[in-house]
């Protein structure tokens, strides 16, 4: 479970999908970086990622890590958004049998985890089949 400051620091990425586009070569880094891994330039502009994409690969987690104990089984996938950026996230609101590589999904704002009954509630992006 992230601490308040570690959670808060990633809000622009988790809530708004803010990424960094390299001013020199145009490659998009998500999360944003200080140096472009492709061309090593150091200047970026803020962009927002596309909100739709397709499933590149997926699995169903049946043995969860502690913060997700209540949620299992749940599907997780690597999604390639329409702008080419790839991210990892849960795929929800679906029957597991309907999941397939190439399946189209859109992003929804959901609760990711919470620290028991008294701790922080963590929000972020998940994927819902279209």
């Amino acid at each position, binding site marked *: 479970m992230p601490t308040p400051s570690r959670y808060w620091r990633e*809000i622009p990425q988790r*809530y*708004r999908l803010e990424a960094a586009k390299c001013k020199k070569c145009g490659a998009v880094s998500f999360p944003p970086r200080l140096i472009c891994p492709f061309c090593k330039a150091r200047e970026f502009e803020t962009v927002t990622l596309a909100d739709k994409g397709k499933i590149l690969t997926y699995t169903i987690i049946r043995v969860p890590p502690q913060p997700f104990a*209540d*949620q299992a089984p749940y599907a997780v996938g690597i999604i390639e958004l329409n702008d080419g950026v790839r991210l990892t996230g*849960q795929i*929800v*609101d679906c029957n597991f049998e309907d999941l397939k590589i190439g399946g189209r999904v859109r992003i*929804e*704002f*959901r*609760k*990711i985890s919470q620290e028991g009954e008294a701790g922080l*509630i963590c*929000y972020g992006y*998940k994927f819902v089949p279209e």
Partner: protein
Amino acid sequence: MEGIVGYGAYIPRNRIKVEEIAKVWGADAPSYKKGLLVEEKSVPSPDQDTITMSVEASKNALKRARINPKEIGAVYIGSESHPYAVKPSGTVLAEAIGATPDVHTADFEFACKAGTEGMFVALSLVKAGEIKYGLAVGADTSQGAPGDALEYTAAAGAAAYIFGRENVVAEALVTYSYATDTPDFWRREYQYYPQHGGRFTGEPAYFKHIIGAAKGILDKARLKPSDFNYVIFHQPNGKFPFRVGELLGFEKKQIEPGWLVSKLGNTYSGSSPIGLTATLDISKPGDLILIVSYGSGAGSDAFVFRVTEKIDEVRDLAPKTRVLLDNNKNYLDYGTYAKFRGKIRKAE
């Protein structure tokens, strides 16, 4: 002119039927269905709450409003199921849509009328020239105590409205609010489920305040029921809206487009606001719409809207409410429903 510039709804896809609940508690399903005029209700997934639904409804409203979120000067969520007791829901929404940091945020609460409360304030700030756009959301994931009558109807959903002066889709002509201290339904702090006064929630509560607000606004606006194309009342069950409509002089066909409760359940602070989104979805330019909410405790907010030609441009820019209600449904059994709603006692 000021009014609605964008609107949007969000309804979770899970449902549970009245029969499924009745089966577990040994209740007579047909008589519940007949008495409540409710067949099924929406159920939030464990990863959905008032905040997540507010964000999705607001994104739909933004799709229709087509404005820069940074120009939103106020963000309000009205709910009786805010995820935190202390820590605003509105700030999460404001961050998620990109309205921060130059924004006024407040969380509203007044049982089922918290949504229209936020709408009243956002609209008023626009009217006063204080802000360019104001976003107000009515959303809830309220709980009904296991086996209680409310368990058959307590549902989840959200509706978001963006108010402004430019490209108005539905002009806000008049508002009226009516409130008294009436203890018909309440929940004390640290209590998981609310309590209610049984039949006391009817005439002295729901009916008195809706009628009070409706008569007040009709007087103020110098309009009669027959002037309206549509009316939306708060929908705690399927019968009350028709009964109060009848008492006020409205016809069934005026109520039907915004009457979702039989398939949706009572979405509390989302109830009449979601009904209004469904109505806007089928309205035409020039239509006159009345919405009267009700919140236990008790009070009602009433608004008169006149639809403009802009509705034809924006209607299809986001999912229609009836589509969200009728499509892609996932029916749950009571065990899964209880697990999703945190009604099963777990180890510490």
